[in-house]
């Protein structure tokens, strides 16, 4: 049973001149239990749209997305599945403390109130932020806010986590540290991750599989397994070789073909 199964998903938006602008074209793929799969494509393509459908914010025109026990297809009412979500910006509520931000989603996820303190302490400790639980987000650094957003997604202990370029807004050094935290939290959780990025190195470092996506409309070009055990070293030559190969393929067959 696949936690995420996408079959023939298509969607178009109305264009300015009344024509339809295709965004997703017959996208199909599966994500297995506990798998970390990246969707890699040029920025501005339909990757985020795909995640918005998965989060129950948007319905497709055709095709089906099964996510957890929810089936999303054209015409069905939009019900958000029980997933953790990490956005590109942390999207924390600045008027609540770190702990209160997490409590908001624990409440929504139905976590019993007596477990809240324990859950919050445990997850904040895993990213070294336990001492900051009563601070407000604007008192934290950018990297710390991203860690809190990671903790928020994991604290509800979801089977599935959706991530939309969660490191995209960070500088390289901060991104590296947040990435380590992300991996540690994910490995402890056993959750299935669907990870959207336009960063090839990041996708190769993190994922079990990388789906290379065509642009405008988005469709699957290639499904590349990353068969290396974790922990992975950033400078591992085999990893770098695979990254170079994917980069080559990406620019030859996706970027150049869409520019033509």
């Amino acid at each position, binding site marked *: 049973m696949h936690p995420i199964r996408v079959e023939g998903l298509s969607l178009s938006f109305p264009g300015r001149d009344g024509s339809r602008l295709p965004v997703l074209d017959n996208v199909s793929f599966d994500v297995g239990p506990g798998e970390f799969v990246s969707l890699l494509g040029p920025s501005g393509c339909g990757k985020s749209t795909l995640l918005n459908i998965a*989060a*129950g*914010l948007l319905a497709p025109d055709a095709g089906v997305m099964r996510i957890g026990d929810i089936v999303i297809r054209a015409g069905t009412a939009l019900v*958000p599945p*029980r*997933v953790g*979500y990490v*956005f590109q*910006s942390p*999207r924390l*509520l*600045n*008027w*609540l403390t770190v702990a209160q931000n997490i409590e*908001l*989603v624990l*409440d*929504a*996820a139905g976590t019993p109130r007596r477990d809240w303190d324990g859950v919050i302490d445990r997850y904040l400790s895993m990213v070294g932020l336990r001492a900051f639980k009563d601070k*407000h987000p*604007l008192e934290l650094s950018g990297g710390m806010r991203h860690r809190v957003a990671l903790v*928020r997604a994991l604290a*509800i202990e979801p089977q599935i986590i*959706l991530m939309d370029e969660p490191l995209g807004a960070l500088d390289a050094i901060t991104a590296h540290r947040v990435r380590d935290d992300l991996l540690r939290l994910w490995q402890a959780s056993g959750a299935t991750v669907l990870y959207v990025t336009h960063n090839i190195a990041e996708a190769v470092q993190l994922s079990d599989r990388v789906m290379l996506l065509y642009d405008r409309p988005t469709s699957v070009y290639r499904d590349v397994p990353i068969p290396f055990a974790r922990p992975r070293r950033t400078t591992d030559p085999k990893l770098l070789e695979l990254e170079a190969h994917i980069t080559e393929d990406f620019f030859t067959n996706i970027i150049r073909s869409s520019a033509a």
Partner: protein
Amino acid sequence: MRRILGNHYVLYLASALCFLAAWWVASLVAVRAGFSNILPSPAVVAATIVELGREGEIQRHLFLTLWRVFAGFAIAEILGLVIGTVMGLNAKFELFADGWVMILLTIPSLAYSIFALLAFGLSETAMIAAIAATTLPYVVVNIWSGVKAVDRGLLDMARAFRVKRRNTLRKVVLPQITPYIFSSSRYGIGIAWKIAVVVELMGASRGVGYMLNYSFSLFSMRHVLAWTAIVVVVMLFIELVAIRLIEERVLAWRPKAH
């Protein structure tokens, strides 16, 4: 002082002292030129205020005007909060109400006063209605823009995490429009004061506006200035002390401007 005015309180005090000095110099010039009645000095006006206080005039008129201002303002703020919020959330109602708001903003406050006095007679109801009607469109515009400025990304976050509607309104939407509620209050009370004095001038037999008109009929500049000063001081107190202290407490999560 520091707590109320912030770290730049020295500048505020200096600016107030400069104002009083300029007034005093101007009044000396006026006396030299032989127009001693045109601009009484700050000391004369202060003495007049003390005299009005001792005679019980301030208590008799000021509290009545304050009550009218707050009653009118409260009605405008509550209605404005509801109308502005619905306009910000509902595109159809926004289009429907947009023109109304523009028209209500354009009508002169004097016209509202006349409408109300003709409709309700020379009564408290008329005065409060005129104050509320003049203030309402300003509050609506303020709250409306606040609701329009609510961060869609945070609403999507709440939805993706399946936060219940009640919690979304209370914890995601309301804190974002709170600063607009404060700015509309500050603005609204200012407008309400101005119109209250106008409507009292026309239709009241008590109140600050009535006393301003009475002072005018006596050609007593020192009484006109005394009553004006009383209004300014009370307004500054409301703005600087009452609203700002509440705001500081409610919006404590925001980084300090200084």
